């Protein structure tokens, strides 16, 4: 994935800063709580939500099961409709293909629709290095780009910014990139949206090359689908002469009809709307067909692997490829709400990021090895996921990979991972605990020792125990464990007094 995040500290350290930042905490709390209640209401409106969720899961599972077949079918359909299909095994290859395609048009700037895939591969940086300027046109992406910031949310990459901060960024930076912010710009959302409209208008109208991702690709028809709100997507998809779409290979659905599921579940899960303001679908180009001159004359589809086939090879972890990037799991996650998106060190933050990044990138780096632990396993993410990804299950599975090592697939090859360093003491403790728990006598001896020395127990701990007692007191150890009471009183029958 993007080089932007290389050298990230492990999640707990990165999260510590966020937890201590009251503005960030306030921004995230406000935004996530706003959307949580709305999503719940939007979902409650449809009585067949459970069935839609199940169908979505099955469509995606079936597609992944036959992914090779559907990829070939999609390629045929897109080609027949006048598009050109490219295959990119990794980020570098995808960037190379896109750069070449842009250069072939002779243009040195492109307009972009918000796209997770192009964020993932660091396309903007790759284009910049070749002298091509990429303008982000989604409002939140614009805020991130102008603020020289990193995205912190899948749907709303600038969720960590409040309206006042956004106004300051617009005032300070818009002039550097084009039309400056209007005089006297305030922090009302409507004015901020208007400022973005004016700033981006000139870029849309002169754009010759558009770059997008896609929410769905229909194998049987070769149709691509972009779901959006602002109209920046429509601008980028229809005004330029050349359109380049970079899409992960898992975004396929087999049939046109399958959209009836996802066009119901995606808007309600992401923006909590019955339907998002704009959805565009296109099949190849209109050249030589009715409506000639409608939309780009050249269409390129870049199919991206970049770790997806490795993820597909993991029988527990592959369910992460069902993800439709709605971000409902981020919005309900109590850990995301406090740690913020940047702590995840990836364009995919939150619960889905915690299972996606370590699979797409492997668990080799400090941040990736720490992500599976960035969860209390509360299950709120699984509950809201519209394609029923059991995120806690995959988190635990990835923890196992970190501590035990084992066989994984990297770049298509099976490799055997060693257990991660830094878990040796924990591993020894877990083994010791397992040994004791397999022997009730050993457990009882430990309990008694704890009870007899209870007067000596502090309420706070030194050393590694500080992790607990820095913020919480320890419970008092009782005079006797339950099992001693049970034995002493014959199951409470010989209980002294009347307390039991």
């Amino acid at each position, binding site marked *: 994935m993007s080089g932007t995040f290389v050298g990230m500290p492990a999640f707990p350290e990165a999260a510590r800063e966020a937890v201590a930042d009251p503005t960030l905490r306030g921004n995230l709390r406000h935004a996530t709580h706003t959307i949580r209640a709305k999503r719940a209401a939007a979902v409650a409106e449809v009585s067949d939500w459970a069935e839609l969720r199940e169908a979505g899961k099955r469509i995606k599972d079936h597609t992944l099961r036959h992914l090779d077949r559907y990829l070939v079918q999609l390629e045929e359909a897109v080609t027949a409709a006048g598009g050109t299909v490219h295959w990119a*095994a990794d980020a570098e290859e995808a960037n190379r293909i896109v750069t070449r395609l842009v250069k072939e048009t002779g243009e040195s700037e492109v307009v972009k629709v918000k796209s997770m895939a192009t964020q993932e591969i660091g396309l903007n940086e790759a284009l910049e290095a070749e002298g091509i300027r990429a303008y982000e046109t989604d409002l939140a992406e614009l805020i991130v780009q102008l603020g020289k910031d990193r995205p912190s949310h899948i749907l709303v990459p600038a969720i960590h910014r409040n309206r006042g901060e956004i106004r300051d960024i617009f005032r300070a930076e818009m002039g550097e990139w084009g039309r400056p912010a209007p005089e006297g710009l305030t922090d009302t959302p409507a004015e901020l949206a208007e400022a973005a409209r004016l700033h981006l208008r000139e870029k849309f109208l002169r754009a010759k090359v558009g770059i997008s991702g896609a929410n769905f690709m229909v194998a049987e028809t070769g149709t691509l689908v972009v779901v959006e709100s602002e109209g920046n997507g429509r601008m980028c998809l229809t005004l330029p002469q050349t359109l380049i779409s970079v899409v992960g290979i898992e975004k396929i659905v087999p049939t046109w009809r399958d959209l009836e599921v996802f066009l119901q579940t995606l808007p309600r899960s992401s923006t909590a709307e019955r339907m998002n303001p704009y959805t565009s679908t296109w099949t190849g180009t209109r050249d030589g067909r009715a409506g000639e001159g409608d939309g780009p004359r050249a269409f390129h589809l870049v199919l991206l692997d970049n770790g997806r086939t490795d993820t597909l090879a993991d029988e527990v972890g592959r369910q992460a490829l069902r993800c439709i990037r709605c971000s409902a799991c981020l919005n309900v996650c109590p850990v995301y709400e406090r740690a913020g998106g940047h702590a995840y060190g990836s364009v995919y933050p939150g619960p889905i990021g915690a299972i996606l990044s370590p699979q797409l990138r492997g668990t080799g780096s400090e941040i990736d090895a720490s992500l599976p632990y960035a969860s209390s396993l509360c299950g709120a993410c699984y509950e809201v996921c519209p394609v029923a990804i059991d995120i806690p299950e995959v988190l635990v599975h990835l923890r196992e990979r970190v501590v035990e090592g084992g066989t994984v697939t990297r770049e298509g090859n099976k490799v055997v991972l060693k257990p991660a360093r830094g878990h040796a003491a924990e591993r020894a403790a877990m083994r010791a605990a397992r040994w004791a728990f397999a022997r009730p006598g050993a457990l009882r001896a430990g309990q008694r020792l704890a009870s007899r020395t209870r007067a000596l127990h502090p309420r706070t701990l030194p050393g590694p125990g500080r992790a607990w007692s820095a913020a919480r007191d320890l419970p008092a150890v009782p005079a006797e464990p339950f099992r001693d009471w049970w034995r002493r009183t014959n199951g409470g029958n010989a209980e002294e007094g009347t307390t039991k």
Partner: protein
Amino acid sequence: MSSRELILGRVRRALADVPPDDTPYEDAVARGYLREHGERGVEETVELLAENLADYRAIVHRCGEDELPSLLARLLAERKASTVLVPSGLEESWLAGTDVARVADRAESGPHELDAVDSVVTACAVAVAETGTIVLDGGPDQGRRRITLIPDHHICVVRVPGQVVSSVPQALERLDPGRPLTWISGPSATSDIELDRVEGVHGPRTLEVILVG
């Protein structure tokens, strides 16, 4: 080896653990969900469409076929539009009541040219009551996608009840995936500032929908 072969090979190896399954797709996925939500009569469906359009800040009008030209003339006048984009196949009579200058939807028109136009009037392909959505498919009475994108004022005429369906599944059945489709639910909006919805970004900030019939 090409990247195509490389990726397809990786996919096949990745699935080596999965038992073969040649169930036809129609049978592989259980579709226990509804074709539409609730039971409504024709008029109730149209009312639901109007309600949901309005809920997402589209301005909804209803009129009879014969009243349409005067209504369109009035809406354009209220908007103080001096130019209006007209798709080539738009019903001639619809704009018979207005003398606002017409601009044709032509292949050679550039974006800057369209940016100078005040309003656009189109028909639609289908409208979805449950979601308050109108769908354009680039048909002759709807024109190229950009004409409903660049002007700031879009008036869309829906023939009721003929063009109205209840649900998303029913809408997809009626639509041709080979055509470029634009699904529109209210004017453009964003939730990018504090996850709160604000109307009016890049697409037309005013969407008026006329239910005719």
